[in-house]
């Protein structure tokens, strides 16, 4: 017995230790999990170490806005605490980390989780646990379209298909005889856009003369093959449904091929600094068309805009954030909506009430979005932002064209 005794004792110590670590504190009187008299706890998973780590700054910008609100006294006296975890853009990490946020950190809601794949991996769990999964950072159309299957999950930014509908409208209105070539990323993001464009063109879908895919894991320098083929197909209009780096590469390659089609760039990659990158790589991008819904921090026309001034004040709270990076104003803008929802909930801070407001009762003006755009949801419409404006690139900057286009109700 003397032999085994110490080992049992060691085992007992181990169990006590793990039990002590694992047990939750809890016990505070609150309206719902994650809410105390003076705090609201939100959780987030984002990529800080994987292939999409350049988006990591979004969470820092969101944190900067919460810090700004907390310095103003918080939301009805409650300070927002924001826990951000790194999932490396790997769904296999997102799931345990999200469970940790919900069950150990006891967050009130998950806010701004990044990426279609990682967020797809956790939505069944969050909906089953009835934890709000608010304003996921992905424009996949399914978040709003399949809302009835996951009533605790909501997107925020305009869906890719809706954006592509606007391009189709622009083509049909202004370039009726266009021969369209499409370069798209072979994943849900690229295909969402392609579907939106095809649907939007409707009976004129045959205007698309060729479409070429590339793989996001191997975009480097090899886009020449796809682009040469598109050029060879006789297309005079090019759609680039690609993430930033391949977009920059593609713009430069198009010019290097001696091709000058009318070019459409999607909103994920139309950041002004990236367009300038492409220009210094030799691309001739004047006349390129895209859409915008958010103010571009590098655009001089907003220099004296109140929303932009507020953005600069807010982003100063983040030492690692580059104020000119479009991801950061995105983060601040979506955090603004989050705070709006919390304010609107007033004293009824329950998960159910929050998701009700966010998914059916939003009617907000957001100072960081283009003038005229409202963040809206109703009992039958769960796409918060559905308005965008066509922009055209000339003399080193995007310029707003026409008026705001409403896509509401176009996605069925």
């Amino acid at each position, binding site marked *: 017995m003397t032999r085994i005794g110490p*080992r049992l004792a060691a085992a007992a110590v181990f169990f006590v230790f793990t039990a002590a670590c694992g047990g939750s504190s809890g016990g505070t009187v609150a309206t719902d999990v994650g809410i105390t008299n003076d705090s609201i706890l939100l959780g987030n998973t984002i990529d800080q170490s994987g292939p999409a780590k350049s988006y990591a700054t979004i969470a820092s910008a969101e944190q900067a806005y919460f810090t700004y609100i907390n310095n103003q006294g918080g939301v009805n006296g409650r300070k927002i605490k924001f826990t951000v975890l790194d999932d490396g853009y*790997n*769904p*296999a*990490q997102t799931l345990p980390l999200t469970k940790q946020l919900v069950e*150990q950190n006891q967050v009130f809601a998950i806010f701004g989780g990044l990426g279609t*794949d990682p967020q*797809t991996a956790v939505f069944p769990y969050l909906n089953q646990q009835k934890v709000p999964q608010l304003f996921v950072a992905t424009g996949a159309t399914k978040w709003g379209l399949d809302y009835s299957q996951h009533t605790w999950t909501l997107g925020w930014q305009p869906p890719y298909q809706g954006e592509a509908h606007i391009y189709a409208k622009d083509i049909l209105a202004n370039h009726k005889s266009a021969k369209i070539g499409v370069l798209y990323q072979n994943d849900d993001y690229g295909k969402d856009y392609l579907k939106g464009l095809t649907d939007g063109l409707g009976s004129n879908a045959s205007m698309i003369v060729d479409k070429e895919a590339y793989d996001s*894991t191997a975009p480097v320098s090899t886009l020449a093959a796809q682009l040469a083929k598109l050029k060879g197909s006789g297309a005079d209009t090019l759609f680039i449904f690609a993430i930033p780096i391949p977009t920059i590469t593609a713009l430069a390659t198009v010019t290097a091929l001696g091709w000058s089609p009318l070019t459409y760039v999607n909103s994920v990659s139309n950041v002004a600094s990236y367009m300038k990158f492409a220009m210094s790589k030799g691309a001739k991008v004047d006349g390129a068309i895209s859409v915008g819904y958010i103010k571009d921090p590098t655009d001089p026309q907003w220099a004296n805009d109140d929303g932009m001034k507020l953005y600069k004040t807010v982003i100063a709270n983040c030492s*690692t954030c580059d104020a000119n990076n479009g991801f950061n104003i995105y983060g601040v803008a979506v955090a603004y909506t989050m705070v709006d929802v919390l304010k609107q909930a007033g004293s009824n801070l329950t998960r159910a009430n929050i998701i009700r407001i966010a998914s059916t009762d939003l009617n907000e003006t957001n100072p960081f979005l283009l003038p005229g755009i409202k963040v809206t949801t109703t009992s039958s419409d769960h796409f918060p932002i559905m308005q965008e404006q066509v922009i055209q690139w000339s003399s080193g900057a995007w310029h707003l064209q026409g008026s705001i286009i409403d896509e509401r109700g176009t996605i069925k």
Partner: protein
Amino acid sequence: MKYLRQAPPRYLLVILVVVVLVGLPTQIPSFQSGEWAEVLILSIAIMGLNILVGYSGQISLGHGAFMAIGAYTTAILVHNYHVFYLATIPLAGLMTGLVGLLLGIPALRLSALYLALATFALAVVTPSLIKRPEAFTGGVEGILLPPPEPPQFAQDAFAAVTGGPPMDSDQWLYYISLGATLLLFWLAWNILRQRPGRALRAIRDSEAAAAASGINVAGYKILAFGVSAFYAGVAGALFSLLIGFVSPDTFPVSLSFTLLVGAVIGGLASIPGPLVGGIFAFWLPIYSGQWVSTQDWIPAQIATVFKNAGPAVTYGALLILIMIFAPNGLAGLILSAYTRLRSRLRGAGERTTGQLPPDPQTV
């Protein structure tokens, strides 16, 4: 001192570990059982890699691809053909094992370096290949699987033991993974201590000498590939059930790399090594980001530096340091320290008999 002098033989340690693993879910919140299930699953895959790399001396930088095959086999069988999920686990293992055997044949002709390059390329190309047969694999959107319900008897038994709520699916999958881990580790222990294990080590140390002493070099090397892939396939199957979702992004190149890191940190050619490796492979990236920032005693600046540097730096540095200073991995380090301690405390008598402590490399 008296207790140390009577330090237990190895099998008592094994029993202790098994008892702790069996009791673990009763002591921790259910989501942590899910995390530990992932640890066990990684251990199984690492054990597979260990059989190949540690024992047969063939290198693979592409074991994540084998996990992907296993995971997709399970996901497709459950989702498209409504096969009972438990039945898919051995099927996924066999399917992957078959692929491993087939790949083992060309691998025979490759030098270590070329095998490393070829398997690396396999890991890189697998996510793109998965995307292609869309109707079958769900393309880039992947396949969602419902979490399996634990059977009634397990739910009741768990509730009776803990006096708490019945067993949930995370805890159930933990026990399934634990069962698979114990079975596969026991199997590996048996294979590797017997004739096949000796043959593999002989091949690893000198192929020519092994062939000269009548060992079927080609046969054993192909077999090692197949068995190794079988382990990775089982791990992949459990992985897809646990995460409830498979997509090309779930099997990035870095997964293969994580498995290799786990095998090396745990200790190549060691039976307990993969378990240690699994613990590290799962917790290191999570803790290198989280733990440091929650420790008050670490100055904020250092914590920020550590967090910003991310797990990649920790991974890389550890890998290099271990290869240089502890080529037998942590398990090797602990075992040799333990053996030294034992022989020291047991007195000079045992030492002078000239019996060297068993080399952890060969146990």
